[in-house]
């Protein structure tokens, strides 16, 4: 039985459909990714699954409980790490965890035990009595991740867990998340708009665009759809007639002066292509990424920049109030 099952889950905001009849099943113990650009409906989906927002229509079952009819039961069995910082920075790390333990009604002795456990897990034991104000962005994120696990949830939701973090911290967090999912045997649902994150971390990925699922599979399977390597050539006047005849070129796409080709075994055939196509400015070959998959399904590039401002920026702007 899946740990999460959505049934025609929909959310409309003043006529705008944020999530459109979503149907998906997430298995126990898997790391599941919702991948899509900003505004695709990922966060709204998470907010509905965690009962913070009521669906306009449809429902979902989380850990056997209905999100519309039994929201309290649902909240008791999930953990959530939000996109924006959600720890109180006037409290210490320890105090934030204690507060969390009290909110989840963990008796005192057990609470102290779990705080220790969680602090060790996210490597913050020796910083526990410091104000969260003085934590770095990565430390704060780790604290919040640990906190989300403290009450032993069956399902952990992570909304853009590495938004605005530097690549090193990001790698670190990925390892944590994988390790945690394995150790504590929980299901993890993450939203992300980082292709690499979805690829590295998730057992299965649902690509969503404009509130709908456009593709759902294991990252490797998704990439097979592309059917070869991707060759991107910058060129003013490509001689496409010659290229089209080649048997190993399965697809092509021309945009401005960029030609992208899908080529079986690009390493072997690259020389031949370059000879035929004309005077090349630059060339790049890569194995398919989820970015190419997204482009394949939606006809658009996914943008990895964050127009709404990164997590770290928001920490800064929050702090400047004081």
């Amino acid at each position, binding site marked *: 039985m899946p740990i999460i099952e959505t049934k025609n889950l929909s959310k409309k905001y003043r006529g705008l459909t944020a999530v459109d009849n979503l149907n998906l099943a997430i298995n126990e113990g898997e790391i599941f990714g919702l991948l899509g650009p900003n505004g695709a409906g990922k966060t709204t989906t998470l907010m509905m699954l965690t*009962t913070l927002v009521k669906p306009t229509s449809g429902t979902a079952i989380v850990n056997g409980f209905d999100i519309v009819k039994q929201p309290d039961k649902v*909240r008791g069995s999930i953990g959530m790490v939000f*996109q924006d*910082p959600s720890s109180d920075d*006037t409290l210490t790390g320890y105090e934030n965890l204690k507060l969390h333990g009290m*909110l989840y009604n963990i*008796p005192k002795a057990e609470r102290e035990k779990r705080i220790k456990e969680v602090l060790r897990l996210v490597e913050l034991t020796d910083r526990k009595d410091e104000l969260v104000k003085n934590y770095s962005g990565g430390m704060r994120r780790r604290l919040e991740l640990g906190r989300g696990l403290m009450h032993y949830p069956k399902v952990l939701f992570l909304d853009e867990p590495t938004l605005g973090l530097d690549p090193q911290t990001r790698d670190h967090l990925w390892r944590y998340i994988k390790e945690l999912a394995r150790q504590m045997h929980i299901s993890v649902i993450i939203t992300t708009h980082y292709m690499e994150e979805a690829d590295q971390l998730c057992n299965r990925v649902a690509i969503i665009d404009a509130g709908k699922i456009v593709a759902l599979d294991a990252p490797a399977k998704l990439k097979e759809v592309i059917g070869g390597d991707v060759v991107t050539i910058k060129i003013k006047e490509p001689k496409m007639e010659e290229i089209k005849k080649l048997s190993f070129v399965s697809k092509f796409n021309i945009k401005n002066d960029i030609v992208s080709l899908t080529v079986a075994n690009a390493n072997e055939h690259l020389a031949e292509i370059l000879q035929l196509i004309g005077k090349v400015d630059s060339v790049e070959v890569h194995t398919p990424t989820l970015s190419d998959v997204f482009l394949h399904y939606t006809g658009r590039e996914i943008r990895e920049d964050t127009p709404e401002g990164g997590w770290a920026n928001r920490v800064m702007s929050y702090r400047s109030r004081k």
Partner: protein
Amino acid sequence: MNSELRGILAVWYRELKVFQREKSRLVGAIVTPVLWLLLFGGGLGSAVSITGLNYQAFIFPGILAQSVLFSSIFFGIYIVWDKKIDFLKEVLVSPVSRTSIFLGKVIGGATDSLIQCFILLIIGWILGAFGIIPGLHFTIFSFIFSLFTIAFMTTALVSIGLIIGSQMESFEGFQLVSSFLLFPLFFLSGALFPINRLPAWIAPFTFINPVTYGVDALRHIILGVSQYHLFTDLSVIIIFAAITIVIGTFAFEKMKL
């Protein structure tokens, strides 16, 4: 322990910690009323006279009420800070009901106010005992009875602050709230002047202002003079607190994120 009860305690615990850390809030909440009392009261007191009372003694209960009014309402609006980051969501995603979260906040805000008023009452006691403000006398009974009255006032006013805060999404509303709510409630409460000789067009406003009854009750308890019967004053305050709590829990249930 009951999970809702522990939830209320959790929210209270957090508010107390914040209050304890943000010392500037407390300092401001003590210094401002003392300045009003000494400078405003001293200055205006030299020009006006209230029958049978020193003006500073007369406004002391009013200044207490002012401090309760401002700190309570603003405490409620601090919830907008919690919304700006995702801290509020972290609390709302826990299994604790929204009613309990609201009650925990009310108790938290009321505690802040009571601590402030405790200090202000001691300052008043000292100022009276040393004759700096003639006519201001405290007894253990009036001291405790004042705090009891303030507890109900702050409960009501924190609830109002939380109701406003739960509906507000930005800080810009702060200014609006102080202009359109706090100052009228303060000036029309009789905190700074007697309300029995007001022009006919102002009088009805003081009559419908719940803060009026708080000021009147405190003046009765501390100075022994009042406009209404003490029983009337206390009834109005307690009913007012009950109504605002009910509306507040409703506002929290409906609060959008």
